């Protein structure tokens, strides 16, 4: 099932990716190829196979509730493009009212 240009734009928006003009078609083709591959996998008979969310055969591994040292504020902010007064600074996220 080929992906429409609108769907590509929607997915790009959700991932906050900016697309150049013409890229919608390019990615629509690539992503459709992936979906077609999945469609082929769907044809397999998996009736007797339990759904798998994990390929590692480990279950129920829990961590004890013991605090460990955190990063310092300086370390935490070291890679931030912008910071102010100990906060990460990000552009204009203002909730609409």
């Amino acid at each position, binding site marked *: 099932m080929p992906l429409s240009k609108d769907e590509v734009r929607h997915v790009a928006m959700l991932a906050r990716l900016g697309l150049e003009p013409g890229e919608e078609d390019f990615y629509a083709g690539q992503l459709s190829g992936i979906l077609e591959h999945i469609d082929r996998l769907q044809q397999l008979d998996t009736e007797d196979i339990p759904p798998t969310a994990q390929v590692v055969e480990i279950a129920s591994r829990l961590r004890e509730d013991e605090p460990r040292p955190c*990063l310092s504020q300086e370390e935490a902010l070291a890679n931030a493009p912008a910071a102010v007064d100990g906060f990460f600074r990000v552009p204009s996220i203002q909730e*609409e009212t």
Partner: protein
Amino acid sequence: MADWETVIGMEVHVQPKTRSKMFCGCSVADVNEPPNTHVCEICLGLPGTLPAINRAAVEACIKTALALRCEIPRHTKFDRKNYMYPDLPKGYQISQYDLPMSVNGLLEVDGRKVRIRRVHLEEDTGKLVHAGDKLHKAWESYVDLNRAGVPLMEIVSEPDLRSADEARDYAIELRTVLRAIGASEADMEKGQLRAEPNVSIRRAGTDALGVKTELKNINSFRALHRAILYEVDRQQKLLETGGTVVQETRGWSEDEERTFSQRSKEFAEDYRYFPEPDLPPLELDRAWIEELRAALPELPAIRRARLVSQHGLTAGQAAIISADRDLADLYETAVMQGAPPLPTANWIVNEVAPTGKLLDPAYLAELMTMLQAKDITRDQAREAYFESVETGRTPAEIVAEHGYRQVSDESELRVIAEAVIDANPKAVADYRNGKTQALNALLNELRKKAPQANPKVARELLLKLLG
């Protein structure tokens, strides 16, 4: 015009009592810690890190599920809820989607059975501070990730509540249960319990659900109540004037006492959930679950009923005392050690609950016995109570040291009463002219001069002398 019926389902987020975050070892920060001081590579979402599930959070969630009479399925897992917003730097929140930790529970609130759809675990998000300049539209946001990754339980009810009162009482009962089982401190002011009601209305007698709105930014039980009342009224006016309710999230503004739309065009709900590949699924040990079930304390509703039937308390007294496990434990231990049940309940409701100052149960029993025997006045008992809390000395010692005693003998009080009457001609005249409250002024004067006076005897004596 046919009546409307209000229909409310509740989503309540509760921070379980843990020392570290949900998926990393960062300590859980207090509210006023400096920003970004409780963060690490994992909760900052740096590449190459792996989350690990906090056992204490799982345990608190199981206990909550059990207290809410939920089923705990054999398999549960975490999922990614994808959305791009700076409050979670990973670009997704780890939550639970189709296989939550627990399902199908029940919480009874004043006789109404509220079905619990699910209780699941997830992580909290960071905090955004919006700053900017309206004139120049130069907005920016500041991000503090101390809360990002803090464990949260989400408790979702079915739409079984029918009024703002019921929704508030449900939230209060939930808090009481969470505190009683030690799953959370559930302090609303600290954001440890956040209630988000889903509100819709429908014509009375119909079954189909109306379009709902979800209310956020609610910081107190009072705000919860008022936000729902406002929202019901808003929806009713809309529908009665030919409008329609739009399904959306609305924020409650405490200052303006209204709800407002928080819709954001860019924030269309499209979370593309998928199983969290970095976390193993959970197959919870049934023996562990049974251990936790066996260790659950008596639940508040049951304790409340027992306080009424066993000790003869009023429903109101029982509600206040059982709302706090420490109060209830203090009460029952003191009574077991000989404290008279009713005066002690009265004492706890009026003196202990409002101050939160708890005395050793044996000392409380000792003090209540003295009060019951009329050896000391209530004011003296209060002084002795708080002094005992402060110093750790026994009430008997304190009473003896201060020479506290109650005088119920009229002849001992008569001289003082007569002096008070002589010294306050105006109050006496007022009283004789029918101003009955003037008696209280005289009584207060008398008690200033003779704190040991039995107030009831003193009052009767004054009445007699005023003739």
